[in-house]
């Protein structure tokens, strides 16, 4: 082939690409692709066979997620304490404030990657995503409503009758359909476009030297609980927080098993940039404060995780440089695309 031939082919190729760019990609964005497991993630634990995701189900779930009628006086929606720009947490609040500005005792957990979650709530107690929304709806400090009344309020609105029909074939509004729609929305909230993910999937991104050193430190000092790629192993552990005045005993409160006292769910480290403050009661306002806890503030409370008591020392030794490197690596777990994804916003 001559040089000229190559040129023609190249120009033609560019032309084809240019043509393709406009329409099909736009359609692609509008097309509902359903739940897609990122290639660097494990198999999800949610039983999708019992609740197949559809565009209509997802959209109904989204409408319900942002529906203030889920609360007693129609003022608070799920989205009030789970704000997308904060990776579906309530940024800047140690504990969440719900209806009538009542304060709870725990920090709003992020709604992301729930398809891989075996247990819900900081202290467990709920083991099926389809049953989880009952808790905030009925909790006095959150929405202070009851499910029967929510279904009653929603069922009189033509908007929802139409949405339920589109999603499930008939207008019938049952607890199961209501819960499944909410699950469909939450399951779609997958955060997998951080720099870390792009590096792992070899999509062209590379760690800086500092991030790479932080990654090595992370694997050595953090990964046994905050395991990749979800950055949590889903277990409940006591990470040595001093017991607060509220004396929240975590998992113990739902199992009454002595060895569960002060154990809380290991949170994911994804999107830390947007989800401060940290821990179940939001006591650490900054990442540095959180890391310093592990370095020097771990308390020897009942059931302290054995990993935090090594060689006669409490906690995990972290120098100033270690912390800096870790912070650099943890920064690669922030997923800007996730917090800006229009599909997850109130429409």
């Amino acid at each position, binding site marked *: 082939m001559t040089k000229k031939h190559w040129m023609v082919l190249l120009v033609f190729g560019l032309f084809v690409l240019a043509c393709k760019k406009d329409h099909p990609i736009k359609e692609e964005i509008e097309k509902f692709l359903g739940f897609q497991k990122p290639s660097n993630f494990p198999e999800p634990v949610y039983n999708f066979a019992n609740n197949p995701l559809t565009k209509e189900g997802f959209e109904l779930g989204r409408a319900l997620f942002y529906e203030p009628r889920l609360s007693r006086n129609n003022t608070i929606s799920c989205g009030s304490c789970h704000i997308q720009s904060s990776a579906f947490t309530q940024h800047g609040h140690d504990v969440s404030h719900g209806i009538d500005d009542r304060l709870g005792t725990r920090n709003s957990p992020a709604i992301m990657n729930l398809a891989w979650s075996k247990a819900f709530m900081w202290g467990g107690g709920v083991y*099926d995503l389809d049953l989880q929304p009952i808790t905030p709806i009925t909790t006095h400090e959150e929405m202070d409503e*009851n*499910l*029967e*009344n929510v279904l009653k309020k929603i069922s009189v609105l033509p908007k929802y009758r139409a949405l339920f029909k589109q999603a499930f074939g008939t207008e019938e509004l049952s607890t199961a359909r209501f819960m499944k729609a909410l699950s469909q929305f939450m399951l779609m909230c997958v955060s997998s476009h951080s720099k870390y993910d792009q590096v792992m999937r070899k999509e062209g991104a590379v760690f800086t030297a500092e991030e790479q050193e932080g990654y090595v430190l992370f694997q050595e000092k953090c990964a046994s609980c905050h395991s990749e790629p979800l950055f949590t192993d889903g277990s409940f552990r006591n990470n040595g927080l001093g017991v607060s005045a509220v004396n929240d005993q975590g998992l113990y409160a739902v199992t*009454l098993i002595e060895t569960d006292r002060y154990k809380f769910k290991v949170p994911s480290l994804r999107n830390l940039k947007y989800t401060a403050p940290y821990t179940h009661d939001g006591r650490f306002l900054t990442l540095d404060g959180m890391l310093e806890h592990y370095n020097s503030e771990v308390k020897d409370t009942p059931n302290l995780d054995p990993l935090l008591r090594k060689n006669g020392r409490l906690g995990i030794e972290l120098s100033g440089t270690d912390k800096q490197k870790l912070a650099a690596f943890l920064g690669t777990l922030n997923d800007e695309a996730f917090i800006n994804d229009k599909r997850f916003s109130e429409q």
Partner: protein
Amino acid sequence: MLCIGLVGCSKKDNPVPEFQETNLAPLSIEFDNIVGARTFTLNNTGSPYKNAAGEEFTISFLQYFISNIKVETAAGKSYTVNPDSSYFLIKGADKDSRFAKVRVPEGDYAKLTFTLGVDSLRSTMPIDKRTGVLDPAAGADHENGGMYWGWNSGYIFFKYEGNSKVISDDANGDPTGKKQFKYHIGFFGGYSVPTINNIKVITMDLNAAGIAKVRKDRQSNVHLFVDLMKVFNGKTPFSIAAHPNVMFNDFSSTVAGNYVEMFKHDHTEN
């Protein structure tokens, strides 16, 4: 001679049908609430009940789940009602709710088994299987008869509330000053790790007070007395003053150990 003749005749006309799983007929089990030697009345402040500890009390609320009904003939043939139609919520405030109505094969039954509570299998089933009395939305909130615990996924098996003057006004009693006792007993044993299990399976021999003769052309009714006094006066008697609130704690097993004794077969209407 005439008597013998009559008995002979009636026997011939009404033989015990052959046990066939598909030949279903109605059977009801009546949960007739009583309190010791007295009838069950809500808020009878004019004549309160008195437990073995000598404490006077009234009852303001009562609800419990009955499930997994099974019957057995004298010959040992048993039939378990389809689990999808074997959950009943007995409500103290609603007389009509006292019957658990099921369908079992025609036959004579000498044994009845049921569960007080909701079995662990059903307690962990997907949301679609939680309909009727098991719908988490049923009964609205806990003040209005809701029997579902959202924060610790599971059902309240037995919910019994009332008032007694012996209850203190401090944090160990009822700080609202209403002198209320509340027993909300649940706990099915846990999803993944074993926790307290308060599910009680009760088996009753019907021979002494009358077997259930289930036939298509009539309604056999096993009439049980359910003595709420046993909650306090059962195998581990306790005082209301010492335990005015039992919900989610270890003492719930003591209460469940007592209420398992509530049931007594009084008679059968065939």
